[in-house]
Structure formats: structure tokens, C-alpha cells
């Protein structure tokens, strides 16, 4: 009986933490979905790739943290370096993504469907995967809560299952993001999304470098 209760707890924790998760992933996810093609199906595909890569990031971090024995000390451990590194990598991928999406509107808005099979599409899928993976590694508050709970479990397999159920709980909150596919795609939307992505990248870059240099935030 321990299993179902435990995984029910993980699911409930995920559902409860969902708003915090979409808040943490929103700056990365929303512009990347807006630069893609219109339609529910292409958006759902990008979202699935993003979430799958995010799960991979979760599990990989959980295994490494378990083996190093630092899962229980996530709150007190010096997380600044890791978050700083993730922010800098996120900034790099976002800038690359914004650049790669340069011609996506010209393609998705054009008449022929054949042009959509070009390499930009693959590049954007790879971009979604990279962004999902990095947000999986980003130690956001809900992730830390789940990590501390998972640290008290008997084995690494149980911890991974706990994380997986936690992930399923949080992912429910991401489903409405597929609705962004219903938004009209034109040059304006594409350009706004790409510009926003570049701004968010700069923001992460500055924060990441400050964290790597051990500088604290505003006014302290």
C-alpha cells in the first residue's frame, strides 16, 4: 500500500505546484510556442517534446543528486552556481532559437506545405528539446520540494518514480499552452515572439553571469 499512497502524494504535489511550474517555465515556453507554426497539432508536438525533455532533465538530475547524496540538502546547498550555469545555457539556446525561427513565418504562412519540411522545423524541435531539458535542470522551488521529499525514499528507483508522478501532476497545467496554436501566426506575432525571446535571453544571461560570479541580487 505504500506505493500507491506515495505516488498519489507525488501526483498531488505536482498538481499543487503546477502554477509555480508554469510561472518558472513560462518565459521560455510561451515565446517558443509562438514562434512555431499555427495549429493545435504542431503546438502539441512542440509541447510534448519540451515536456519530455523536461522529464529527462528531472530524472537525470535526480539520479546524479541521489548518487552524490545531495538531494536532501537542495535548500541549503550552494545552488547559485548550478542555477547560474543553467541560466547562461538557457540564454544561449533562446538566442539560437530566436535566430533559427527567423524564417519560420515565411514558411508557415506560405501556400505550399512542402516548405515546412525544411530544416528549420527540425531545428525548432531540437530547440524545444534543449529548452525543456534545461528547464528540467533549473532548480525551481517546486522541484526542490519534490527533491527533498524524494530524498527520504528507500531507493533511487522509488525516487525516480516519485519524480515521474510529480512531473505528471505538474504537466496537467501545461496542457492549455497547446491552445496558443489557435493564435493567428503572422509576421507581427512571429517578430514579437522572437524579440521577446531575445530579451528574456539577455535577462537570463545577466542573472546567470551575476550568479556565477557570486553576486547577489538587487540592493543587498
Amino acid at each position, binding site marked *: 500500500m505504500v506505493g500507491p499512497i506515495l505516488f498519489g502524494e507525488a501526483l498531488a504535489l505536482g498538481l499543487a505546484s503546477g502554477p509555480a511550474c508554469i*510561472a518558472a517555465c513560462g*518565459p521560455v515556453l510561451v*515565446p517558443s510556442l509562438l514562434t512555431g507554426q499555427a495549429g493545435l497539432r504542431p503546438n502539441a508536438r512542440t509541447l510534448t517534446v519540451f515536456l519530455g525533455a523536461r522529464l529527462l532533465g528531472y530524472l537525470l538530475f535526480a539520479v546524479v543528486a541521489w548518487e552524490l547524496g545531495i538531494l536532501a540538502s537542495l535548500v541549503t546547498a550552494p545552488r547559485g552556481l548550478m542555477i547560474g550555469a543553467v541560466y547562461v545555457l538557457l540564454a544561449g539556446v533562446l538566442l539560437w532559437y530566436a535566430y533559427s525561427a527567423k524564417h519560420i513565418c515565411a514558411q508557415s504562412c506560405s501556400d505550399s506545405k512542402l516548405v515546412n519540411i525544411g530544416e528549420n522545423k527540425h531545428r525548432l524541435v531540437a530547440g524545444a528539446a534543449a529548452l525543456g531539458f534545461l528547464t528540467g535542470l533549473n532548480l525551481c522551488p517546486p522541484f526542490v520540494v519534490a527533491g527533498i521529499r524524494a530524498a527520504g525514499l528507500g531507493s533511487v528507483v522509488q525516487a525516480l518514480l516519485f519524480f515521474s508522478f510529480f512531473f505528471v501532476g505538474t504537466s496537467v497545467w501545461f496542457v492549455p499552452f497547446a491552445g496558443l496554436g489557435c493564435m493567428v501566426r503572422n*509576421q507581427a506575432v512571429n*517578430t514579437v*515572439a522572437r524579440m521577446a525571446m531575445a530579451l528574456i535571453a539577455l*535577462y537570463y544571461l545577466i542573472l546567470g553571469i*551575476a550568479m556565477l560570479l557570486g553576486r547577489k541580487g*538587487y540592493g543587498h
Partner: protein
Amino acid sequence: MATEAQLLRLARPATRTMGRSVLLTLPIVLWSFLMFGNPSVHQDLQAHIAGAMTAVFMIVLFFMMMKTGTTYRWRRWFFVSLGLLFPIGFIHNVIAMRGTMGIPVEEMIAGRTPFCFMPIPLLILPAAFTRTLVFPGSILPNGGMSGSGIAAMVGLWLAITLVIGKGWCSYACFFGGIEEGMAAVPKRAKIRKIDPRWRYLTWAVLLAMVLLSLALFEPAYCMWLCPFKAVSEYVAARNTVGLIQNGIFVLLFAGLVIALPLLTKKRTQCSFFCPFGAFQSIFNKTSIFEVKIDQTRCKPCVLCQNACPNMSLSKESVARGEALMSCMKCGACVDACPRQAVVWHIKGTKVAWKPERARLMFLYAAWAMAVMFGGSIIAQGIATILHFLA
């Protein structure tokens, strides 16, 4: 069918007689004295004089609008004065109360950070998700520099916005006046060709700042990108990050508010960067006042496009007979059109149906709010100068 000469004669601005202009100005006279004639509010002599000067200033400008039938240049006097006098009054208050323009962390923790309207769009999502305001101020008055609190500012903003839409950016914003003044300095623009895609940047800043404010639980625009921090209150830079933030504020101010308006004769910060401006554009849909183009009179001469300080008229929009949703209702295009093809319009009526009546209705609403909101800021700025001179 009217001839070209008849049309041009019709197109002259509707100048009025002195008596009629005075009559039309009377409501603003009464409103101004109601706002600035209350002795219990203004305690000392300088404040009395400042109030009287402001009342006369606002009345004269409105009278000139009525007399000449033009709007833009008179509104610009008010708006530039507002932009220049706001920092004077504000900085004086800040220094008097806390001794420095820098905001110390202690003031933030105590919820005493002054709240301007800029972070309003950034507060909505975090409030919806977590029922928390991501701003270190207080909802109700909390002493210090928090003024009347967030609730009063949001209420005032909502009331003004629902009526005049993005007219806020031309009649209420106390930041835009500096760049409008800068844009008025050169006779001709040095940079005339601007890629219209830059207009999207303001929406991108809005999207990025809303998402980052939700993710990082801070008013991201105020923390990192507001150019007007350079002339209001800056980060108390106690470390490298604070210095970087202040550097960004100063650079953005120098570039977007000083240099680019001088080079382009446009309000570049408002047009290409301000997230609040993008947010306000949405409320042009709720306002009944708008600017339309009477297709029967329009000969596409692009004078209106060149006159627009906000790039809110494009070839396509003129062909559709309307301004873009980013229109700030400043009146520059209406005044610039030699054929009076660009007209003030009330939604639900036919285009060019009594445009002067539409203009009057808009101006009464906008100017009454300008007297109340901007006028009090102008009076405060003048009072500060008088205090220094006394």
C-alpha cells in the same frame, strides 16, 4: 460634387470667436478652480501661487484649443511641462523624505516604494496565480513615499483608461513629456526611415516582462529596464548588480528619451519600448474615442504619417481609414491634414459626422483628467521651484 478649392476651404481648422471660445472654456475654468482653489490642500504661499499658475496655464491652453481649432501644439505645452516638472517635484520629495534618490532595501521591505502606473500589467498574472502583488509597495497608504498606495493609482488609471483609452499616453503619463520635448527641438528629423517592425518591440517588451515578472516574482521592468529610473529614483547600488541596473537605466534614458527623439522627431521610448504603452493599446478598444480617416477627402500625401509621433499611421491603415491601435490620440495627424480628412470620431457614428463635436467631447474628458492628474503634478513641480527661489 465639391471642387478641390471648396474642399480645401472647408478643410481649414474651425476657428471660433472670442466669446464662443470663452464659453466653451468655462467648464474647464470651473474644474481648474475646484482642483487648485482649495486652501486647505495648499498650506503655504508657494503652493497657493503654484496652484494658481497651474490653473491659469491649463485654462489658457484649453482656451487656445477652442479658439484655434487645433489640439496638438497646445497639448504639447502641457505634456512637456508635465514631463519636465514631474522629476523636479518627485526628486525633491524623495530627498526630503529619505535623503537620497536611491531606494534602500529597508524601504522596500517596509512596502514604502512609490508606485507608478508602469508595473500595472506586470502585476496581473502573479496576482491571478498567487494572490500576491509582486511590487514592494502597499495597496493602501503606508506612509513614506508610497503616496496613496497601489489601489488608488490602479483605480485612477482604470477610470481614465476606460474613457480615453491610449489617450493616457498623451494626457496623463508623466514620463512621455521629456521625449516629446526632445522630439520638438530639431526642425527636421535626421533619421527619417524607420523600419516599421520596430513597432513590435514594445509588444515584445510587454510579453517578456509579464512572463519574467511571473517567473521571478519581481516587477522585472522596474528592476531592469525602466529608462525613467534615471530621473525619478534609482537602485541603491550596493553591489555590482545594482551598478549594472543603474547603468542600464541611464543608457536607456540617454538613448531612447534624449538621443533618438532628437534624431527622429518621434517619441521613440513610447513607440518602440514602453510595455505599458503596448498594454494601453488594448484599451483603445474600450474607449469610444478614436481617429479616423475620411476617405472621400483623403489624398494620400503622408503628411499625417510624418506628423504622427508614434508611427501609428501606416499606408495600409490610412487605406483602411483608421489609425493603428497604438494611436495615442495626441491630435498631431488631425492638425497636420490640410484637407481635414483625418478626424476625431466617436464609435458608432458615421465617419466625419460632426468631427468637431467628437473632438470637443474627447477634449473635455481628456483635459478634465489632465487638470486633475497632470495638473497636480505640475503644481507640485512649480511649488518646488518656488520653494528653492524663496
